[in-house]
């Protein structure tokens, strides 16, 4: 990649940040050039974010909703809370979640980085 070809397409996912990329300058030497982003990165990042947003919308219980909102999946959240995956899967069921004791809600809220009260709400 030549220095003048470094993409400066104002990527929305970078939110105004610039990232350092290496490109070949006029003298043939590679050097760091700040880039405002490439549309390709925006496409694939938005695709990943939108997939998680879709999963959050289709969630059956508030816990599942917040799990995807926090960009986690079952393996990650189970790991973060320190329980088996089947146990988390059970807790994701709406009936089971509705009866979940406060200490469990606390553990989930802590792992998801939200308040305990927020865990019961879908916003």
């Amino acid at each position, binding site marked *: 990649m030549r220095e003048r070809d470094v993409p400066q397409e104002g990527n929305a996912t970078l939110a105004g940040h610039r990232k350092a990329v290496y490109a070949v300058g006029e003298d*043939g030497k*590679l050097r760091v050039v700040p880039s405002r982003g490439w549309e390709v990165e925006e496409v694939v990042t938005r695709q990943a974010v939108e997939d998680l947003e879709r999963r959050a919308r289709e969630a059956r219980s508030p816990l599942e909703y917040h799990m995807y909102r926090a960009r986690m999946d079952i393996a*990650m959240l189970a790991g973060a809370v*320190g329980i088996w995956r089947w146990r988390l899967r059970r807790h994701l069921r709406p009936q089971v979640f509705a009866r979940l004791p406060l200490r469990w809600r606390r553990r989930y809220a802590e792992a998801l980085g939200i308040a305990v009260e927020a865990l019961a709400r879908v916003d």
Partner: protein
Amino acid sequence: MRFQHQHASHCESGVMSSLLRHHGLALSEPMAFGLASALAFAYLPFIRLNGLPLIAYRMPPGAIVRALDRGLDLGVRFETFRSPDAGMARLDALLDEGKVVGLQTSIYWLPYIPPDLRFHFNAHNLLVYGREGDEYLVSDPVAETPVRCARQDLQKARFAKGVLAPKGRLYYLTRPPPAGDWRALGRRALARTAHIMLHTPLPLVGVRGIRWLARAVERLGCAEDDGAAKLYIGHIVRMQEEIGTGGAGFRFIYAAFLQELAATTGYGPLEALAARLVEIGDEWQQFAFAAAKMIKRRIAFEPPALAARLRDIASREQRFFADLNQARLAWAL
């Protein structure tokens, strides 16, 4: 000495470059990356991230710090903690001593990272060079300028759980770095990278890993509305362009390393190899570009065409690393 922030394209090589420079050894980011033999390729379908395989374009996290520690005899001390309070107290104590401390963190919990880029990746490296009350002065290599991070956020990021959990890991140099013998270190690093790319016994690593990925891509359905197939393709590109890289799956950084090694040691043949690797990096970018166009439906969705590109890149890299190894062998000591 006042700490100087440096904008880098990869967190771990950036951290090591800044840390060494702070201790009086000028080592650029590409040199840190290359001397640690950090370039690689691995397709690991049995490790799933949101249901998609792990595709890495470099060695596993921690490899750069460890390889430089070994090669340059830096006496890096690593510490991990069971309790967050102990981990934060130890960080404060080290900062009070005037040390610059490297941290392993989860990028998801760092508030200064743009929201769309915050995924659960537990091995993001950054440096802390000071503290003002409850705010830490952070030099994150991927940020353009130094940033600040509140105690609570930093604690959450250091003690995130899950795959590659950092457990509060911090590291610092215990003695001033000696000047390295770049020629010997460089030769050894080239040998290691060529070996990883060409001769790893596992077919999922190195050039064979790229071919294996090509086969997986070929098997994807061609249907335009196949969301899962498109996510898979997008995932490959995201791992290549977005997750902690300077683009083209680290090929450009490694090319910069070859160029700099040629200039430092006076070994000319590396210069031409650097130019060839830049071309291979351009091919990776073209692959990413074609993939994004297919996702956006600007051209027909044809996974086999992408697989063909990957196979072409694989054979180019095979020739490249074989020639790199030859150049290394021909390098008289």
